[in-house]
């Protein structure tokens, strides 16, 4: 085991870059640029437990399909943060997923995206974190993943297989805006981390770039240029509006981690950068993943006459409709038409109900929406799960009934939600089979090999 670690440390040390001798800058321009990049990279989404009160102090529990990962303190605290990092170590953490002590980061840290960051931007980020972020001496809980994921060195194999660590290069054939957009999408804003489906070993699947993927209880949908299943039908202005407010009427609204990304990151980007992102996204190769356009499904309507005027507990032919009326209609309207100003969205012509993957419908019901932007205000839909502030506590059966009513009346007809699916989303989304595979399959192989090496090494020492 030690052998592996040693060789990794060695190889890391060999990878000396021009950054090795750089000093953090302290000029306003570099610091501002670094701050902007930190926002674009949405470091705070994971590394701040209390976004406003204690930025970058870590400790936030990130639930991943393989277990809970605690984000680290990335303030320049020497005891608990990155205060002792050289710029090179900082660069290696961001671009290679290797911490200063040589240990491997889990790819919950999107280093496969940050690998695209230019040296200049790394320098600005480093300068910002070292000179403009307040050091906070606060430890964070240890991440303890189940075996074999707790073997961090296994990430070395993973990196060797899946990490493309070539820094972004402009394509001279394309416009400046497109190149900037590509850099932002592939690099700092790390869209692929959520929107690109992952393979058996949790690696992003290159041929499915931005074609949609499950992220815990939520589904990050297809945002390729496909006209039917992607966002190829959106205008550039709509993409920009979405990134600024998290809402495009009659199309989509951000919840879950996308709401965070918009609240903390995208809304703060310059119009130029948002347009650049839109420019680039429009050219991302179309991947068709569905036969129905999720933005134009469904229609208004109701089944109120089935139960209006009758006792609330009386049997009804429309239990889903009654759940809708009691919990949803007060904001979304009795015909699911939303409010006239569009603030409360209609549930037809809405990506959440028009998508064949029902995760976002279930998750929105269970977890609500919390999104705050300067242009769109603080959007807050209460949850309907087990939370103390749930407006109504709906059980799995009720959420399934409600979802099926909404899908049938206002969304993608024929889509079904089961109470079991609701239970899974309530529990935080599907767990990755990776642990099982690793334990019983490949993992067994790796462990056997390791064991053999260990034995050999042990025997050599004995001799």
């Amino acid at each position: 085991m030690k052998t592996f670690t040693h060789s990794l440390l060695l190889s890391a040390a060999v990878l000396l870059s021009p950054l090795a001798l750089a000093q953090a800058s302290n000029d306003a321009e570099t610091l501002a640029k670094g701050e902007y990049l930190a926002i674009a990279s949405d470091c705070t989404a994971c590394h701040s437990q209390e976004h406003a009160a204690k930025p970058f102090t870590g400790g936030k529990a990130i639930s991943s399909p393989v277990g809970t990962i605690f984000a680290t303190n990335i303030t320049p605290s020497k005891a608990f943060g990155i205060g002792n990092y050289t710029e090179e170590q900082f660069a290696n953490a961001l671009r290679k997923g290797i911490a200063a002590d040589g240990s491997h980061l889990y790819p919950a840290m999107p280093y496969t995206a940050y690998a695209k960051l230019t040296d200049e931007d790394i320098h600005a980020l480093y300068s910002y974190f070292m000179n403009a972020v307040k050091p906070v001496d606060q430890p964070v809980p240890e991440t303890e993943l189940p075996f074999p994921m707790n073997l961090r060195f296994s990430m070395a194999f993973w990196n060797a297989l899946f990490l493309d660590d070539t820094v972004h290069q402009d394509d001279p054939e394309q416009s400046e805006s497109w190149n900037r957009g590509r850099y932002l999408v592939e690099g700092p804003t790390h869209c692929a981390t959520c929107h690109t489906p992952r393979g058996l070993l949790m690696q992003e699947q290159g041929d499915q770039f931005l074609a949609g993927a499950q992220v815990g209880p939520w589904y990050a949908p297809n945002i390729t240029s496909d006209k039917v299943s992607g966002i190829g039908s959106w205008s550039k202005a709509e993409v920009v509006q979405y990134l600024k407010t998290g809402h495009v009427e009659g199309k989509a609204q951000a919840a879950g981690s996308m709401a965070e990304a918009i609240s903390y990151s995208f809304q703060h980007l310059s119009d130029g950068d948002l347009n650049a992102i839109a420019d680039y996204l429009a050219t991302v190769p179309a991947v068709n993943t569905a036969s129905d356009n999720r933005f134009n499904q469904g229609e208004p309507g109701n089944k109120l006459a089935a139960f209006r005027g009758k006792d609330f507990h009386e049997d009804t032919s429309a239990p889903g409709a009654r759940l809708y009326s009691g919990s949803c209609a007060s904001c979304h309207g009795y015909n699911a038409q939303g409010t006239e100003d569009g603030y409360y969205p209609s549930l037809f012509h809405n990506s959440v109900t028009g998508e064949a993957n029902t995760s976002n419908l279930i998750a929105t019901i269970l977890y609500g929406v919390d999104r705050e932007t300067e242009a769109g205000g603080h959007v807050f839909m209460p949850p309907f799960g087990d939370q103390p502030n749930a407006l109504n506590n709906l059980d799995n059966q009720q959420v399934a009934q409600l979802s099926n009513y909404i899908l049938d009346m206002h969304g993608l007809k024929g889509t079904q939600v089961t109470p079991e699916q609701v239970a899974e989303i309530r529990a935080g989304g599907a767990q990755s089979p990776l642990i099982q595979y690793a334990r019983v399959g490949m993992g067994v192989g790796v462990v056997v090999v390791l064991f053999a090496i260990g034995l050999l090494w042990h025997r050599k020492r004995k001799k």
Partner: protein
Amino acid sequence: MSTSSNSGASNAEVVIVGTGVVAAVVAEQLLDAGLSVLMLEAGPRVSRAEIVENYRNLPLGNKGNAIASYPSKPWAPHPEPKSGRPGDDYLQVSGPNGIGYLQSYVRYAGGSTWHWAGTCWRLTPEDMRLNSLYGVGRDWPFPYEELEPYYVMAEYKLGICGPSDAAEQWPQGVKRSKPYPMPELPFSPGEEKFTKVMREKLGLRNVHVAQARNSGMPYDSRPACCGNNNCVPVCPVGAKYDAATSLGRLEAKGATILHNAVVYKVETNANNEIAAVNYLDPNKDSHRITGKTFVLACNGIETPKLLLMSADERNPNGLANSSDQVGRNMMDHPQLAYKIKLKEPYWTGLGPVVNSGIMETSQGDYRSRHAAAYFRFNNFAQNRFVTFDTLKQGLIGRELDEQLRHNTATSGMIVAAHEVLPDPENRLTLSDKKDWLGLPKPAVHFDVGEYTRRSAREFSEPMIQRIADAMGVEEAPTSPGFRPSKHIMGGTIMGKDSSNAVVDDVCRAYDHANLFLPGGGAMPSTATGNSTITMVALAFRASEAIIRQMKTGA
């Protein structure tokens, strides 16, 4: 929802009877201080969706009835006049203004804030010194300055929105130690017009109501108001504070909440301290809960009723009643409500149902002669009040639509809400009539008194006519007489002197060192504004005393 509520819990450091706003605020303060809390609710625990749907399912002829969405359970009746339901004749009223004391309160987990409007007028310094300043009523045992910090706590706990402009704030010209946590809610078109007309024609200032409702933003993990115009009988989205919104949080902090648990006897020990409360479940089985400190937070009718029901050898006239003041001094804000028919549209029905008021009329030296009153123009959508009469006219087609629209736009209600003085003869007693569990029903004798009648004669009725005239009415409005504002006060009145008061200045019963009776029952004066914010301020004050007493014995 289960009818069995006994979780097996039988004790806690603090036992709270009630789950309404006062109980919830006290409970949270105590939980935050590390004390264990058990709460008992007589009625059921139901979902918001059920109440919202109950409202929507009511026929149009019953939609104006704020209690109809809350049908009583047989074991926990609350007043439901003319309903044919368990609460039909639960509250027995008598006296010259008996019908003016037909209160409306909710025996459900979450209590009566389920159907309050959310109005939160603070008292003024003068409101608390009626006797010193005007020679009437009672003074509070402490000045406004001592209450003010608790008002701030109430405003931040409940999430009370209000104007940031000092000229718009109530009380006027009195320093606030902290701004409201949220800005005021906007007026409806009718309220805008009313405000302008009052200012220009009568020189009166109609100001934004401070109200426990999320204005323009989420607050306390509850959503912003989206103008459902349904605060009474229920906020369908939880933008209005009601105690039901806090129960889940209390449980997350460790509180035990028993519902369908009707406390019928509070027990004393040899030291005349409270030892236990006993409750009946829907199967009429009795259970006993012990604790160290007890809080009765069932507001001004159920709390004195329970004290009277709990009479024992040591306390033959009922608990906490050595002063003979338990159940006396029953108060409210007797209101005169006038339906008006306007010449021009004053569209009401956008935003909260009570959203503004003319408070400045409630102060003045005239209070040595007659009661204060404040005036308001309600903001309910008028459809439910005008539809039947319009349909009876025999119109059809376009004419019908036009007439309906006209009547909706030009109908409204103006209200004069009065103060009353504490009068020992306005008294709650135990009726010889029994409820479903065999417990005595409460009976209240009520007379608004000459002080308030004179106010109506000399002050509020003429003022209403001036207001109506300024607004431009088809005919001079009339009122059916005093009706309750459903702000139950008195019953366990607070004072410095244990010979004529039930509780001391922290709402502790003079007769029982470990019994607290915070809430409206303690209020020595009513002023004219809704009582809840003052009840909550008293709840904070009592909580501090409870914590102090339990942690240090002081």
